């Protein structure tokens, strides 16, 4: 294996070898290497296949601008796809895989797409799959999905650790290059709380390792000394941290990569940390990316950005080629050429598209001994998996040609400032003529946001350092701190000057690649313009230019420059496409953090939870609550258990934990008036010691919730709500009070957690209570239906209300939460002689469906009281909230739904969510309604359900079906009254 390392110190530690695999083959890198540098050092230039045409691709960029070398790290559930090989440090045992190749990287059968290139041109998807040929999408989709794509996401759950955190600071500096470091120094020296973030694992950005002097001090030394000073001044320095988005209220989203693969020592450490950083001020020192040059085969492995070739040599001692050709339209590449030549690499030629260059450039070319072709351009790169030679020609006389052997073509089309984060804030970048790129106009930014370095339009080293320092001083001034004295840095080499020359679109190959990640060529741009998609946002959507994970970092400027030539527009008048967060792809794992599985949301447990758990109850989540679903006896199925539990309520007595019901204390002199307004039925006449069932509507007349309110005293009510409706009802009451009737003297407190609640239901429930609370009279006279009594005990007051949800003689017993388990166990032990058994939500559901009581399945926010046949609850005598809009005629027409009962004709279970239809399975016809709740009814020995069916359909009921086409189930049903059992309510009047 040939090594492409050169003998020179750099950021890699040759004492510390690191072994990793790429597509199963083992390679050796060193500590400090990235995946890209380690593979290039091993002579590997083929990293992957391109998105659309499956062309071979290698490394083109130094870091996060990389569009081609996308890799997957890890396997199975731990695989993380679409990572840039240039940003991931290699670690021992790391498994790296190439992407978008089939069956293998070298032999990619789908590269036949290259031959079909004319078919995959701009607007391909729109032309082929919209309009009359839309159906063909179905046909081609599987093939296209396989042929055009990036890395694959694992479908297995990711068990790796991630975490979230918050940070607050005076100033957040985004970018740890020389500009950001200088800004940090000024701010930290002023005593400000500074956070400096950078996505690289070294400080200094693209200038790390650059051979230059800053005010007489070696640049690398200035960087390390400054970083040490920042640490000493208490600044928080976050490397490998990408600030991916800027949001309202000075909130910044950032992800810190702590590791790329899980450790193998069994200790669970987070891989990534999602940071929400709230900063009083921010300084964007995000630097710039180099632009590629446009020519045929400019995406071939071995063709890379000029400063990238320099960077791999300076940072990693990697020679990207043995015979390098530099191709540029500006001065900056001459610095890279000088550095490469001084390191002993062979720079064979310097091709410059400009008609003439400065004397400094000429003497530099002579100094390094490169053939200097000024006014020439590259026509084509030759080679299959790696560049072997380049064809060049004179621009104004294309008959003059040369073919130059080269294994590395290093190109520079000027620099493109990273304006993404300013764009997130809604700022439109402005065109800078000297820079040939879009920059941030500080006047367009909010006052708390500042820019420095290339983003502000400066590219040379001393200007970046001085500008960064000045931005830090400005923040200090605005925050009332005393800034340090300004600095006047000077550099030895710096930047030569003279900005890029735009290429003439007429001289360029149509096959020149513009967007390396999405395979968008100059030809695609031309076609889109011809077809009328010449506005930047249209062009982007029509050609997919700039839509990859790299967001067009290296294609934007070239595309806009060509677009202006093709359309005759002035570049100043072009508005670049707006960038949106995230700047780089963010894993869902990082955003979710530790909120997964049991920790996805808070858990609420009732006071009797431990008892249920000790009984081995089958639990079920209901919103945030966990409730017993059924208490299964050994060998019992869920169905057997709930049938037994419900049957026992009808026959003897059962007890159910209803602590999850929402409970709101409504108190004050006007509490009664208030309730009379929010409930549809009359509450003004409710006496003390009585409860009433009430219905509550939203503004639009639809049902919000139902429940009972108990009048405990003259000005004291206890309102209960459904388990799921508690929060919404509380907010509804507060809103009506504050925004509609602030003059009413009433207040609300949620007391859901204060009361334990249990329902004791069944013909023998009175006997159980009588025994448990001996000395208290529970006779019909003492506690009639809807009566409420309070029992004072040494530990607290217990409320007993005679309410029935099951249709049986039943009581709701509320006690202070701390007494919950005690009272629950008391009732169970006193009820033993009467056959008491606990029952869960399944039995509760079966009992209420038999009675036709509505619950969550029916109260879905889309139903009116008329739909639920609760119009009897609407007072005709008084006004109530929601009444005006309930009077709209349309709410009563023949297309409205009405609550009905269903019985399964063939005795097979029904399914909630099924549609009610007229037709058989072969021709079901349109939906006439839906099934909202289902159960087996122990009392009827039938499979039953509640449904909402159109009034029009009910009138011509000629036999209906409950259709579930997803499960392939079609059941014949009989429509009956939703009061399946005891419609007159005799059973609860015992």
């Amino acid at each position, binding site marked *: 294996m040939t090594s492409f390392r050169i003998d020179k110190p750099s950021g890699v530690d040759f004492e510390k070898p690191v072994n990793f695999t790429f597509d199963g083959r083992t390679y050796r890198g060193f500590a400090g290497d990235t995946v890209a540098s380690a593979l290039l050092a091993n002579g590997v230039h083929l990293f992957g296949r391109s998105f659309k045409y499956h062309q071979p691709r290698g490394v083109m960029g130094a870091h996060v601008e990389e569009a081609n070398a996308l890799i997957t790290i890890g396997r199975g559930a731990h695989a993380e796809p679409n990572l840039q090989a240039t940003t991931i440090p290699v670690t021992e045992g790391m498994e790296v895989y190439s992407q978008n190749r089939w069956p293998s990287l070298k032999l990619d059968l789908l590269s036949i797409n290259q031959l079909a290139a004319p078919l995959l041109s701009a607007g391909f998807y729109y032309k082929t799959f919209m309009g009359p040929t839309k159906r063909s999408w179905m046909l081609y989709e599987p093939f296209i999905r396989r042929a055009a794509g990036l890395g694959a996401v694992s479908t297995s759950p990711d068990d790796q650790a991630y975490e979230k955190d918050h940070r607050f600071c005076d100033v957040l500096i985004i970018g740890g290059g020389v500009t950001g470091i200088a800004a940090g120094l000024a701010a930290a020296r002023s005593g400000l709380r500074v956070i400096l973030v950078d996505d690289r694992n070294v400080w200094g950005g693209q200038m790390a390792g650059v051979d230059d002097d800053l005010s007489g001090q070696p640049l690398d030394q200035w960087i390390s000394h400054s970083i040490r000073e920042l640490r000493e001044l208490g600044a928080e320095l976050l490397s490998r941290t990408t600030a991916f988005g800027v949001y309202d*209220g*000075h909130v910044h989203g950032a992800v810190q990569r702590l590791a790329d693969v899980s450790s193998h020592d069994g200790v669970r450490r987070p891989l990534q940390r999602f940071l929400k950083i709230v900063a009083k001020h921010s300084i964007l020192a995000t630097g710039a990316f180099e632009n590629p040059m446009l020519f045929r085969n400019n995406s071939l492995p071995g063709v890379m950005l000029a400063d990238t070739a320099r960077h791999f040599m300076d940072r990693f001692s990697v020679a990207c080629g043995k015979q390098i050709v530099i191709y540029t339209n500006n001065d900056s590449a001459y610095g890279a050429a000088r550095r490469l030549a001084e390191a002993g690499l062979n720079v064979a030629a310097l091709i410059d598209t400009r008609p003439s260059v400065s004397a400094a450039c000429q003497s530099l070319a002579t100094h390094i001994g490169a053939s200097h072709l000024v006014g020439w351009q590259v026509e084509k790169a030759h080679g299959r998996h790696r560049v072997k030679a380049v064809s060049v020609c004179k621009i104004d006389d294309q008959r003059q040609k040369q073919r130059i052997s080269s294994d590395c073509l290093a190109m520079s089309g000027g620099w493109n400032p990273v304006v993404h984060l300013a764009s997130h804030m*809604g700022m439109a970048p402005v065109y800078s003529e000297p820079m040939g790129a879009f920059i941030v106009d500080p006047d367009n930014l909010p006052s708390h946001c500042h820019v420095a370095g290339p983003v502000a339009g400066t590219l040379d080293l001393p200007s970046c350092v001085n500008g960064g320092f000045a931005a830090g001083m400005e923040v200090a001034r605005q925050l009332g701190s005393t800034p340090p004295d300004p600095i006047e840095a000077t550099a030895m080499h710096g930047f030569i000057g003279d900005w890029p020359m735009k290429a003439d679109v007429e001289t360029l190959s149509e096959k020149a690649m513009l967007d390396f990640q999405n395979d968008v060529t100059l030809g695609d741009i031309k076609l889109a313009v011809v077809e009328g998609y010449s506005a930047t946002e249209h062009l982007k959507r029509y050609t997919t230019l700039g839509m990859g994970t790299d967001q067009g970092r290296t294609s934007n400027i070239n595309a806009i420059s060509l677009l202006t030539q093709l359309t005759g527009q002035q570049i100043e008048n072009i508005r670049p496409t707006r960038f949106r967060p995230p700047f780089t792809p963010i894993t869902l794992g990082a955003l979710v953090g530790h909120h997964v599985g049991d920790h996805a949301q808070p858990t609420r447990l009732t006071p009797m939870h431990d008892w249920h758990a000790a009984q081995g109850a089958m639990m079920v989540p209901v919103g945030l609550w966990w409730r017993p679903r059924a208490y299964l006896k050994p060998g019992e199925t869920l169905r057997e258990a709930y049938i037994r539990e419900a049957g026992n309520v009808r026959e003897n007595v059962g007890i159910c934990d209803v602590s999850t019901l929402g409970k709101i204390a409504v108190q004050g002199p006007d509490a009664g008036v208030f309730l009379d307004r929010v409930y549809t039925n009359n509450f003004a006449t409710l006496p003390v010691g009585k409860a009433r069932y009430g219905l509550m509507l939203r503004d639009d007349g639809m049902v919000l919730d139902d429940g009972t309110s108990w009048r405990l005293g003259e000005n004291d009510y206890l309102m209960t709500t459904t388990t799921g409706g508690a929060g919404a009802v509380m*907010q509804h009451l*507060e809103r009506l*009070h504050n*925004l509609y009737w602030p003059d009413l003297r009433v207040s609300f407190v949620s007391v859901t957690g204060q009361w334990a609640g249990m329902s004791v239901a069944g013909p023998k429930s009175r006997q159980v209570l009588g025994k448990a609370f001996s000395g208290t009279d529970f006779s019909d006279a003492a506690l009639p239906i809807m009566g409420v009594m309070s029992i004072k005990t040494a530990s607290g007051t217990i409320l007993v209300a005679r309410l029935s949800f099951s249709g049986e003689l039943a009581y709701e017993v509320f006690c202070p939460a701390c007494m919950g388990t005690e009272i629950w166990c008391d009732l169970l032990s006193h009820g033993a002689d009467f056959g008491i058994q606990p029952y869960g939500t399944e039995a509760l559901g079966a009992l209420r469906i038999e009675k036709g009581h509505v619950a969550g399945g029916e109260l879905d926010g889309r139903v009116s009281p008329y739909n639920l046949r609760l119009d009897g609850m609407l007072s005709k005598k008084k006004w109530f909230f929601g009444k005006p809009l309930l009077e709209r005629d349309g709410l009563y027409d023949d297309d409205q739904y009405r609550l009905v009962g269903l019985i399964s004709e063939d005795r097979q279970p029904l399914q909630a969510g099924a549609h009610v239809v007229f037709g058989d399975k072969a021709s079901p016809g349109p939906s006439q309604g839906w099934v909202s709740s289902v159960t087996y009814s122990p009392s009827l020995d039938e499979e039953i359900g509640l449904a909402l069916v159109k009034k029009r359909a009910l009138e011509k009921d000629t036999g209906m079906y409950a259709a579930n086409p997803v499960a392939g189930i079609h059941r014949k049903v009989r429509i009956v009254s939703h009061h399946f059992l005891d419609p007159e309510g005799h059973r609860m009047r015992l």
Partner: protein
Amino acid sequence: MIIDCPCCGRRPVSEFSYIGDAEAAKPDMHAPAAEWVKAVYTRTNPRGMHLEHWQHLHGCRQFLKIQRDTLTHEIFSVELVGVYASGEGE
């Protein structure tokens, strides 16, 4: 977004709940249905300055009238409304 609650100070938007358009008419209890239709369904939904009701749901639970630019999300004023609007309280 960060909202400066008069009771609690600067808090992240995730603590608040948007209630509705504070510029929409609030009909009288006995106003005809047409007025309620206007109040419930007709929204100006402006691009720019807007008066809105918010509730500090995960905080003091008070109702706030907020003047906000819907384009930039800049907040210009926050005032307490409802029962404690006068600042007297109980």
